[in-house]
């Protein structure tokens, strides 16, 4: 069986996506059409520019279909797997950033140390840095470990030092800047 050419898949995908967007998405997700008549004057509607963009996409798809290229889809499975791992590591990092602080405050509350919510404490040390420190260190250390194929203390150290550096750059000199996740909680 002949290997599938990448430009054919890309071209077909572009043409199909453009056709679906022009026929289904844009008419149903734009308040005005290609043209709109307002106060007796014809004006360009909100759907015109995106339609033009999708027409360009369709043209590009057709050009790709007739292109000569030997690039195949070989290695795509490996890349998809790698991307999936990256997405998981990123999601875990963000979860740690978002929830470490509130969780620590809840635990401290059970122990009777604090009588406040995380939202009330998010501008105070050390609470404000807990999520960023754990999530950030995890992000750096896990990616280093992924690439090296082993988990090392050095990877954690690089992550922790990066976090420390960012706190020194962003948090220490600027009282109005918020590190993750303190703008969301």
């Amino acid at each position: 069986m002949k290997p599938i050419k990448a430009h054919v898949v890309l071209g077909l995908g572009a043409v199909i996506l453009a056709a679906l967007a022009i026929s289904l998405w844009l008419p149903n997700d734009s308040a005005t059409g290609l043209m709109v008549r307002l106060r007796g004057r014809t004006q360009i509607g909100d759907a015109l520019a995106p339609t033009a963009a999708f027409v360009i996409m369709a043209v590009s798809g057709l050009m790709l279909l007739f292109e000569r290229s030997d690039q195949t889809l070989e290695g795509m499975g490996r890349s998809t797997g790698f991307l999936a791992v990256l997405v998981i590591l990123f999601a875990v990092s963000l979860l740690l950033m978002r929830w470490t602080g509130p969780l620590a405050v809840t635990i401290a509350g059970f122990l009777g140390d604090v009588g406040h919510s995380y939202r009330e404490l998010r501008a105070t040390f050390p609470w404000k840095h807990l999520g960023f420190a754990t999530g950030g260190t995890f992000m750096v250390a896990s990616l280093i470990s992924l690439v090296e194929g082993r988990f090392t203390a050095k990877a954690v150290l690089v992550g922790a030092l990066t976090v420390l550096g960012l706190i020194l750059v962003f948090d220490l000199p600027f009282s109005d800047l918020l590190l993750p996740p303190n703008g969301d909680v």
Partner: protein
Amino acid sequence: MTDILQYVWLGILAVFTGTPLFTVMGMGIPAAPVMVAAGLFTGIAVGATPGLAGPMAMAISLPILLSFFGFTPDALLPVFGFLIGIMKGSTVGGAVPAILFNMPGTPDSLMTTFDGHPMARAGQPRRALRIAQLSSVSGDTFSDIVLFVCAPFLAVVVEAYLDLPEKAALLILSISFIAAVIGGSVGKGLLSVSLGLIAAFVGTGQALSPRMTFGIDELSRGFSVVGAILGVLIIGETLTSLEDLWIHRKKARIDESLPDSVVDGLEKGDVRRILPHVLRSSVVGSVIGALPGVGSALAATLGYTIGKNYHAKRMKPGDAVFGAGAPEGIAATEAANSAVSGANLIPVLSLGIPGNAAAVFLILAADSIGGFNPGPQVFRFDTAQINPELVIAFGIFTLMSIGNILNWVIGGRFMRAMGILARIPLQYLLPVVLLVTMTAIYVQDTSLFALWVAFAFGIVGYVFRRCNIPVLPFVIALVLASPLEQTAREAFAATGGDPFFLFNSPTSTIFILAAVASVIFFARAAK
């Protein structure tokens, strides 16, 4: 002429009498020149670090700069100063690992390895670095002079002769040209442009309810342009490089087997020897740089190839050939790739059209701060009162001149000290870049959703790179989509709702035909 000289003077004054950054012995030190120096040193360090690039450093530093200097017009020159410093420094710094370790710090310094590294291996690393610095700074300075002369002239012509339909047609021509010329496939260039336009149109529009949001509230204000650009440019590049490292599971090997120096440093006759190559490559780089979207890698290739042919015809017995440690080879490459940076700002300042990633960040800085909108309207000399945007423009020219002077005087010394940065393992550097980028995005948007959006655009950037789709057309289309739509709406209204408004003047018709012709020409050339 008097008006021009007055604005030149006002620009210089704006730089040297601006808000002081700190005080030394009771004297306020103006922020802008200090920031140029800081940016220049940062840029040299970034250029000298394989895996990092000037736009990356510009992207990461922009939110920090905005936080520090605020969003008032007083912030414009210090912020531009730092970004311009990075731009200039990174072009020089790229030669360091290319010469010392045979690793191009930036893609456009690949050809510097051909002659720079053999010269370093022959025991003359300082001579190679000095030639690279002299050539690079000469090319950059030449290109800046071209910018200072051409940008105001072009802007005045555009403002005098182009009306709304012509301006809309010019934007279409620019985007089409960029799509056609970048990368090896016009189809992929157009696909990149279309995706950039679509991303920019999400959540915007003039109707009360936002378009293309699938009813998702978070999309109703559209994607953050900074987040999207950082995602595609920086995160996409980081993910791709991480996968490459993951596949090969090996550290980038650094060639540390340089012999002890023999007689090192510039030799007698070196400057005379490289001068013709520097001049020729400076012209090549400036011409290439003035065209939106055509990058410094092409300029370096052209400069090197032309220089090689010239050298082959005129070389004397005993001269090194190109590829075997010829000083002329280093000069031809470095002058050409550095001459792109100044000329790249011609379309930005005179037309508001970014030609490369570095220019995109200058536009983003201007958009974020306000008070300066790059485009032909900046160069209005005939206003009744002082035109503040024109003062800023001449302030930018002053900042670029300061950057060049610093580069001439101390750039070389700093450059030689940066060789150590090439030894930082990429597997440590890339995750750090990812976290720094994410933090910079959060600081600006204060939303974890923005991080997800940036990561999603990072995946888009990763897919682009894996499919050989050029990234720059996407970024430039993203930046130009809003001005293009707005100009088209105004042109349509101004022509009384003429559906053929893009064809109602010879100039706009020529622009549109040129846009179509560029696509057809480059599509045929690619076959």
